[in-house]
């Protein structure tokens, strides 16, 4: 990435002087702001100090504290006398700097009286370690003064580090928006190289239908960006400053679960707002068995050890049962379902005398028969193993519990062609971004889909290696990988967190509270981002990477503002990022697709 704009290269006029009344250390110091200068939080500054041998040491840092106070007065009430013009006092305006870089690495303290400048141009590159990133930097947002924050792609794509973790309160922290902005920046800044489709994204849509319009241009982006530009006094709109196109996502496929209905009904996606371009997804019953999806049905695997054994052995039985044919449904010969069941669930007999299992409910009924009813209540010995009836009953009870939720997703009542067409495939050729809508699903079904998709992805990448980085965007990590407890999907996520970066699977995870997410998942993220946080949450150890002043500020961050911490820069940096160029609601969709009304009208008229 070469076109990150760091502004003019000239060294600015001094804005302050290092203070002598507070300790000056190589990692943190205060400076007095000169009259007429203005310094705010998050400003990046540079200081040069001269060693006794005549060589220079440069300090780069970020302002994390600013304050003014009356100097030379003793009492708080003296302010009244000062304001009344009776008491002469000067205002002391000082700022504290957290050093982000010392160059060369001589950790001597700066001297009181050394001039402090705003970091611009090359100073800014040094302060943000952009010189180390070189071509591998992509824009992560704009600093308070309109300069671009470079993010080191080597710490995203798994080369030096991987994964991005975003924390913040729902609604105001705009976690998903920022995750999408980062994706947009990674895909479109050119940091991935010339192959435009070198990267892929798998995005889970967990709330509303927010992400189902990613491929549509946002009609408000122009006005919102013009407004932000005027407000912040920027030289250009924010996309242009970062060198990013104002465009919606390209090559997107939208997957949604089928609308629940009776078996055999037409399979249509279960979405409300978007009429076209959404593909329903489902798995065939045979795939469910052959690809060992049973464990992902059970959310709380650690409920009992014995139950885990049952799941394992049944998974194996189902796998064997599914071999030897490729119909979406399964056929069994050793089961005579009750007539009642037949009528209810539309079981059809074929001429071979075997029974066709074409719904998830039938699969559950079959398992119940094999485990509990066969042999006059003893169960099929090969299936039962040595498990006690109580454990088996618990297993069936749990299956019954999720049966309703999985019936539309795992089915045998489709043709082989349909099963192939509706099989979710985030790696489909020609698709860069896949949005999987799971917000209409129950919690169990969500876990099932996320778990199976990620497992498939992981296994695929284990086979083919890390060409084609895949970014997985998943909100509500605290649900999928809670700190306490154990579940198959947590195992997958842990695998991704710990081994994914070497396989080219990058998790862009988000959660309201990092303290409730498995520690290893959060700690494996190289890039950490914090939006608005609950103040109590901000004091938890998971956020110790934020200096105290940042933690206090995390409680008042506005939507569209994030604190970004990356390995190259030891202190977090506050950034704002532009309004999405893609629609996030139906009414934001730009019908004109960026063209003028007249042009579109002409298309209609002629």
């Amino acid at each position: 990435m070469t076109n990150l704009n760091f502004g003019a290269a000239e060294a600015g006029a001094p804005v302050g002087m290092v203070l002598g009344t507070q300790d000056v250390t190589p990692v943190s110091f205060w400076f007095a702001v000169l009259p007429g200068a203005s310094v705010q939080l998050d400003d990046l500054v540079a200081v040069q100090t001269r060693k006794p041998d005549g060589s220079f040491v440069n300090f780069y840092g970020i302002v994390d504290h600013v304050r003014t106070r009356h100097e030379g007065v003793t009492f708080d009430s003296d302010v009244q006398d000062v304001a009344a013009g009776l008491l002469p006092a000067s205002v002391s305006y000082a700022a504290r700097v957290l050093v982000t870089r010392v160059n060369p690495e001589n950790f001597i303290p700066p001297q009181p009286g050394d001039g402090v400048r705003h970091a611009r141009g090359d100073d800014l590159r040094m302060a943000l370690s952009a010189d180390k990133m070189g071509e591998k930097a992509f824009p992560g947002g704009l600093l308070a003064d309109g300069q671009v924050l470079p993010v080191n792609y080597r710490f995203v794509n798994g080369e030096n580090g991987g994964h991005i973790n975003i924390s913040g309160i729902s609604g105001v922290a705009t976690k998903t928006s920022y995750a999408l902005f980062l994706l947009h920046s990674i895909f479109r800044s050119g940091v991935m190289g010339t192959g435009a489709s070198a990267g892929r994204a798998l995005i889970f849509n967990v709330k509303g239908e927010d992400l189902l319009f990613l491929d549509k241009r946002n009609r408000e982006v122009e006005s919102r960006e013009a407004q932000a530009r005027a407000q912040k006094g920027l030289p250009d709109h924010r996309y242009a400053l970062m060198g990013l196109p104002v465009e919606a996502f390209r090559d997107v496929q939208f997957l949604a679960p089928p609308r629940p209905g009776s078996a055999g009904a037409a399979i249509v996606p279960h979405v409300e707002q978007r009429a076209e371009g959404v593909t329903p997804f489902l798995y065939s019953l045979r795939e469910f068995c052959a690809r060992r999806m049973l464990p992902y049905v059970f959310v709380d695997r650690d409920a009992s050890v014995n139950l885990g054994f049952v799941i394992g052995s049944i998974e194996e039985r189902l796998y064997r049962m599914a071999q030897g044919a490729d119909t979406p449904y399964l056929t069994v010969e050793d089961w005579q379902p009750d007539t009642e069941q037949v009528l209810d669930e539309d079981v059809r007999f074929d001429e071979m005398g075997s029974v066709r299992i074409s719904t998830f409910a039938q699969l559950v009924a079959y398992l119940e028969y094999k485990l509990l009813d066969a042999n006059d209540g003893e169960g099929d010995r090969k299936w039962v193993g040595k498990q006690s009836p109580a454990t088996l009953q618990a297993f069936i009870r749990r299956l019954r519990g999720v049966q309703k939720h999985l019936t539309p997703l795992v089915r045998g009542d489709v043709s082989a062609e349909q099963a192939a067409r509706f099989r979710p495939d985030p790696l489909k050729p020609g698709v860069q971004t896949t949005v999987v809508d799971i917000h209409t699903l129950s919690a169990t079904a969500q876990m099932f889909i996320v778990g199976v998709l990620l497992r498939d992805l992981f296994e695929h990448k284990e086979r083919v290696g890390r060409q084609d980085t895949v970014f997985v965007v998943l909100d509500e990590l605290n649900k999928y990988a809670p700190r306490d407890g154990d579940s198959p999907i947590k195992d997958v996520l842990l695998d991704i967190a710990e081994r994914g970066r070497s396989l080219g699977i990058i998790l862009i995870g988000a959660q309201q509270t990092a303290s409730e997410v498995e520690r290893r998942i959060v700690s494996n993220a190289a890039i950490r981002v914090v939006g608005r946080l609950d103040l109590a949450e901000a004091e938890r150890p998971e956020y110790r990477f934020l200096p105290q002043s940042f933690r206090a500020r995390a409680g008042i961050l506005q939507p569209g503002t994030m604190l970004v911490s990356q390995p190259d820069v030891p202190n977090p940096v506050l950034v704002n990022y532009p309004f999405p160029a893609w629609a996030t609601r139906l009414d934001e969709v730009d019908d004109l697709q960026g063209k003028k009304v007249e042009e579109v009208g002409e298309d209609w008229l002629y």
Partner: protein
Amino acid sequence: MRIRLDPWPVDIEGGQLTLDPFDGTLIDIETPRWAAIPARPIPRQLSTVQVVDGKRRMEGRVFVEDDHGNVGTGGFGAYVVGAVSLCPHGSRAAELLDVRAMRVLAHAPALKLDPTSLSPRDPHSGTLLYHPVPTDSADPMAPLHRLQALMLDAEQTLSHGYASLVPTEETDDREALTSLTLQDGTLRRGGATLGGAVVGYVKTMQTQYLSADRVGLLSELKPGERTPILHMKSETGRSTRFTWYVRLSGAAFYQHPMSGVMRLEMYAPPEPDFLPPTVREVANLSGTLLGRLGSHAHKDPRAPQNLIPTAALEQAMGRSMGSADLVTRRIRAHIAGLQGVA
């Protein structure tokens, strides 16, 4: 038995009230009616009030031998004068003016000395430059007196430089009172020739000028009220002043009833035939002005007489002279350097 507290802390020498008898002459120049006069508002055209003060410090007593073999005593000393400029209507922020320390080496007469420059070891702190100044006598206290005199002269020059002129003839209305200077302490004898609306405010009452039948009024004054203006001639007859008393704040029941009262004085011609209107104007506004500038007991032990700007000025002046310890160390290092020790 009746006991009342002197309002000031005991460690301040002399306290606020000494009340020695006065042998000079006092004439009623404003009115023969001895009664309280209420304060008037501050006129709009008075836009600047300067509060002037000075401070001095001996930094080392020395025995000097010059290049011609003459021997005598002397002293390194520093003094500083400065002013706070403020608007009595509060239209702008108060600011410190001209707070700059001067350093002298006061020495016995007949010595020939060059200016002494004390260079610092650390280039961040500046150089101290002591100008040689001969004293009047070889008395060991002479350097201190010389220093004090230098400070008072500087203070006086500063005071008069700022103030509006006081017209001395009844018909003269050339200059309205736009700028008034408050100077800490009694007015210096030589200042009368300089002119200007300079008011000396005397924080302590070491002399009881009023006769016994008139003293009672001082206790009865309400905050802001003043006595009539008197023309005062010292017992030697060499200095004449207009003077009046004004109360800044009420006295607490445990204090002497005269606490909170302050005496003000302005220059007067030797013959008491005429009260310049400017003097009356200053006296009229003095209660209002000083009531505003007076400090509060919880912030300043010498309240209310030690004015708010004065306290700030004293602090600034102390700062400008630098740390006494560091200066002493510097002097020691300098002398060591001269002897080739350091």
